[in-house]
């Protein structure tokens, strides 16, 4: 009898392996109409062309793209002649370094941000303290721990090395005598000597310099805007779902990865914030990531709101090319600073596996640590946005497997 049972089990297992297993696999790849709509919303084919930035009238000018690309790699635009945009955003690493804190001439208090798809966002930097890509591009030049440079020095470099390319796009450069361009002059509240030199310049000269500086940012933005993702294995999978092509689906993703995708959309509710084809809502959330002890407290978005409203390069500034009505994000900015204490921008998940460490100060070394952090948030620490269900270790590994399918090469202006 015992032997018979054993044989029966063997036969049963054999039948199970033969017939039932493929049925289960098919179930894994069967999506409801509602789920298909969500998959489509995350698909790279749903990504529209990078929108025009009304504050930057040059952002589609190929000459601006070409100049911007050269400026992006220009290390002479730094205090030690060694820092360029590419220092923290190297193209061979998907335009983002692998350090917990960005390092230029010194070390900043935050992690470098990925540049992929940067042209799609309303707010730039972890705290959204800039409202356009060109305004963002200018921030690091005058930061003492990044490029450690000044706008007068930037103007000198443009005049000396980029006069022709600049004038083709932006018109004639004003002429400056040497004393018109004191090297260490910038409107920085943190550097009184440079501030004093700056305000000692005549107003018109300051405007001339700042105009060149702003145009430099607009050219760099025109280049950075071209950095966009290509189709990943996840996108191949969605294409197969849309074409009702089961073999294409099974070829694109493993069962493990599809299980992770199901969790991502379903139980774990990751799409609350990681929505759309860039897997981000571009909004700001406090998810309770501990601030490293070595850094000062960081209140994130709440401290950036007033700053962007008075920013000299914002959408409604004199250096912007936009009409007031084009500046909806700035005009209707949420000024409830309390709501945004400790809130940082939701980053894209495209290529997320390729860019550890994670979070605004590189708090987590691996994707596994990130996923465990979300799971281990105490119930009282979880807002409804952060309700991820009770995930098992196996489910975390499936989610991680799915996140790794979002890897794809980037394209950018050659």
């Amino acid at each position, binding site marked *: 009898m015992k032997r018979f049972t054993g044989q029966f089990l063997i036969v049963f297992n054999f039948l199970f392996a033969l017939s039932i297993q493929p049925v289960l696999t098919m179930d894994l790849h069967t999506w409801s109409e509602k789920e298909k709509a969500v998959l489509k919303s*995350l698909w790279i084919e749903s990504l529209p062309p990078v929108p025009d930035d009304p504050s930057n009238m040059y952002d589609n000018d190929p000459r601006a793209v070409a100049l911007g690309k050269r400026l992006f790699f220009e290390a002479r635009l730094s205090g030690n002649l060694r820092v360029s945009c590419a220092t923290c955003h190297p193209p061979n690493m998907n335009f983002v370094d692998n350090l917990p804190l960005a390092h230029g001439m010194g070390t900043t208090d935050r992690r470098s941000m990925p540049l992929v798809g940067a042209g799609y966002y309303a707010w730039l930097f972890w705290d959204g303290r800039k409202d356009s890509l060109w305004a963002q591009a200018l921030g690091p030049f005058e930061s003492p721990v990044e490029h450690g440079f000044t706008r007068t020095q930037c103007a000198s470099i443009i005049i000396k090395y980029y006069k022709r390319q600049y004038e083709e796009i932006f018109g004639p450069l004003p002429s400056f005598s040497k004393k018109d361009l004191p090297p260490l002059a910038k409107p920085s509240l943190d550097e009184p000597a440079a501030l004093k030199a700056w305000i000692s310049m005549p107003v018109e000269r300051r405007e001339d310099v700042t105009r060149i500086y702003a145009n430099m940012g607009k050219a760099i933005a025109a280049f950075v805007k071209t950095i966009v993702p290509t189709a990943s294995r996840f996108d191949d999978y969605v294409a197969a779902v849309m074409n009702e092509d089961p073999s294409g689906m099974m070829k694109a993703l493993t069962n493990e990865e599809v299980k992770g995708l199901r969790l991502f959309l379903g139980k774990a509710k990751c799409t*609350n914030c990681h929505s*759309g084809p860039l897997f981000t809502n571009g909004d700001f959330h406090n998810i309770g990531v501990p601030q490293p*002890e070595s850094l000062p*407290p960081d209140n994130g978005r709440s*401290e950036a709101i007033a700053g962007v409203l008075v920013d000299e390069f914002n959408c409604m500034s004199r250096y912007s090319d936009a009409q007031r009505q084009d500046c909806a994000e700035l005009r209707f900015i949420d000024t409830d600073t309390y709501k945004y204490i*400790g809130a940082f921008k939701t980053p894209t998940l495209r290529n997320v596996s390729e860019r550890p460490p994670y979070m605004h100060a590189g708090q987590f070394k691996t994707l596994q640590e990130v996923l465990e952090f979300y799971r281990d948030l105490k119930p009282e620490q979880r*807002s409804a946005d952060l309700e991820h269900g009770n995930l098992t270790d196996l489910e975390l590994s499936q989610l991680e497997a799915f996140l790794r399918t979002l890897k794809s090469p980037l394209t950018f202006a050659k």
Partner: protein
Amino acid sequence: MNKIIVVLLTILLASCAPKAQRIRVDEKHTHEHGEFTKHYEESLFKISDKGMYSVEMVLKEHALKTGVNAVDIIIHDKEDNDVVGGDIEVVPWMPEMGHGVFEKPVITEKGGGLYTVDNIILIMSGYWELRVIIKKGGMEDTAVFDFRNVTVDKGHDHKMTSAPDDLDLSAGKLTENGMFNVSYTSILEPMPINRIHSWELVVHTPEGNPVSGADISLDGDMPEHGHGLPTQPEVTDELESGKYLVEGLKFSMPGWWVIKFKVRAGGRSDIVKFNLLLKE
């Protein structure tokens, strides 16, 4: 006349002072440095590290929450004298995370050993300490109050509720007291997620006449998530009689949203709420 009002107001304010509500207990607490007295029933009681002072802390709300908090502290010395003219500092601290907060709490001395502490901003939920540092006469001592479980303040307007099955998704309806008939159309269809856009709002009387010159404000909320819109939309223009432009709407997440309009016109005011179910 003005003087009388000022005096009356002063009396009124004085009678509202927090002291009036306290229940005295006068419990004795012995400590290696001597005997201290807890005076108020509802206070949290600590003796400072070096045994120089007793500190009583009275929470303004039931418990500390994430966000802005206020407490009162009452300080006595070893001889049970009120500590007046102390240089008091209150530091919120997260011992497990090793950080505090940017903004300093604001301390105001009220006399009789009472100090009010406002603007205690706790930036996240978790284990917090409030460290009360007392400096007086060249000496310094600290009393540490711990709050092991500070949780998210969901706020009064943000009680979590689930979407009912029969959610009314109509884009036009009478306001709650039947004063106006209001309907909206989105400039972008289907309603987008993560994209700032405008609506047109048509306001009529129940009889169907356009309501011109209305003063309209709006707000949005996600009842299941306890948060609102990522923007502050406004009615910016009246495009034609009774037809208004709403700018700055943006929905950061899929799910159930409620947009509430408050309409004031002809001396009357009423509200209307529209439900939206946004899909990814």
